């Protein structure tokens, strides 16, 4: 099939250039595209702007890229579980922009839906320095939050069909569909690639229209498993 969406991890990620803005799925570890991120580390891609809900934890997710000095800027809602990212920010080596979690998601959705931005009243109390422009609708003040897009999105799905239709699992769903909507090149790692029709069209979480490349996860390292420090102790 000449137009197959199925790639090796190396072929899928090779076209990601230095300086790219990359949208990354995941909330904590669930839904984080660890194999694709590991490939970025291996191929040496640098000067990145990453957009992810959180900064991951040391040694996991996007943190190895941050630790290796490959990330210039991180746009996130929460970085509290990664002291290494916070340290780089305090040393001026990593610029971190923080947005309220749902507003971050909606900025990206706007970028993925052909819109220029959103109107929101969240955080108006923080003052003029953070409020670029106010708009009044039915007597309520809102600020304009511009849309956000990436050059690339890295996505983790539970299952894909060869058309690129995706199904996400439990809380590994999170930011994955919205990130996949808002990038020029969308690369998905998945545990399973099934023939067209094997996923009931009623059960597709994200249509393959948004998906460019599928990578079958070859090796499930410990980062895909249960992290003992987040589990109850026996």
């Amino acid at each position, binding site marked *: 099939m000449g137009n197959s969406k199925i790639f090796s991890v190396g072929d899928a990620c090779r076209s990601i250039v230095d300086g790219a803005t990359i949208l990354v799925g995941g909330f904590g570890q669930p839904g984080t595209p660890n194999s694709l991120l590991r490939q970025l580390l291996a191929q040496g891609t640098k000067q990145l702007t990453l957009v992810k809900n959180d900064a991951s934890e040391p040694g996991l997710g996007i943190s190895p890229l941050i630790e290796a000095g490959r990330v210039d800027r991180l746009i996130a809602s929460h970085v509290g579980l990664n002291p290494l990212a916070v340290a780089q920010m305090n040393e001026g080596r990593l610029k971190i922009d923080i947005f309220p*979690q*749902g507003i971050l998601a*909606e900025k990206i959705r706007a970028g993925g839906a052909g819109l220029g931005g959103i109107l929101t009243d969240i955080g108006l109390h923080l003052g003029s320095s953070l409020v670029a422009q106010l708009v009044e609708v039915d007597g309520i003040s809102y600020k304009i939050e511009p849309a956000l897009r990436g050059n690339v999105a890295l996505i983790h799905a539970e299952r894909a069909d060869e058309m690129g239709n995706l199904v996400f699992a439990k809380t590994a769903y999170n930011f994955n569909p919205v990130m996949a909507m808002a990038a020029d090149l969308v690369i998905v790692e998945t545990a399973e690639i099934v023939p067209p029709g094997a996923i009931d069209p009623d059960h597709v979480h994200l249509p393959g229209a948004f998906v460019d490349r599928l990578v079958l996860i070859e090796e499930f390292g410990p980062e895909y498993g*249960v*992290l003992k420090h987040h589990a109850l102790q026996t």
Partner: protein
Amino acid sequence: MPYKHRIARRAAQEIEAGQIINLGIGIPNLIMDYLPPGQQVFVHAENGIWGMGPRAKAGQEDPDLIDAGAAYTTVVPGAAFFDSLMSFAIIRSGRIDVAFLGALEIAQNGDLANWIIPGKMTPGIGGGMELAQKARKVVVLTTHVAKSGQPKIVKNCSLPLTAPACVALIITDLAVIEVTAEGLWLRELAEGVTVAEVVAKTGAPLQVPSDALPRF
């Protein structure tokens, strides 16, 4: 009973059957252990759960199923999973009946600061700002004073606010305090705590009813 569990047990009494609640990280999460038995309560988690259950037992964790604080959790029958857009649509549209949050400072008018200490602690806001601003009722669960001994309940917050005038009720290791249009009212005392101690450790005027106060 450790004070965190005493706070959580008292906080669970604020929940009514059929309500949708959200539990912040820390003491609020302990409320799961004290939910009223036999009443359907829907626990929402920012990372995409409506109908969260108790934490996963050791050995029964699912790597794809965590709460918003990254701890492995479970769901109850009838639960739903969804993406982050849907999760925050639920929050911002006012579907959360009660949000239980932690605090660095609470002002006498209900201002809440719990997300940043400039130059010291910058974890980011997560979902806290949207929860504090849009939940129908915000209940703060906290120690009465900071580790330094300074009151957390103050006339005016010195830290950047999470949301203005959002807190309805404060439950601490010492007392239950209601935030009203006429200021702070002492409503209940923890076992073994005196009115004088609460007043001394509160950094804003506290009104005390003349009747005997319930204990919790």
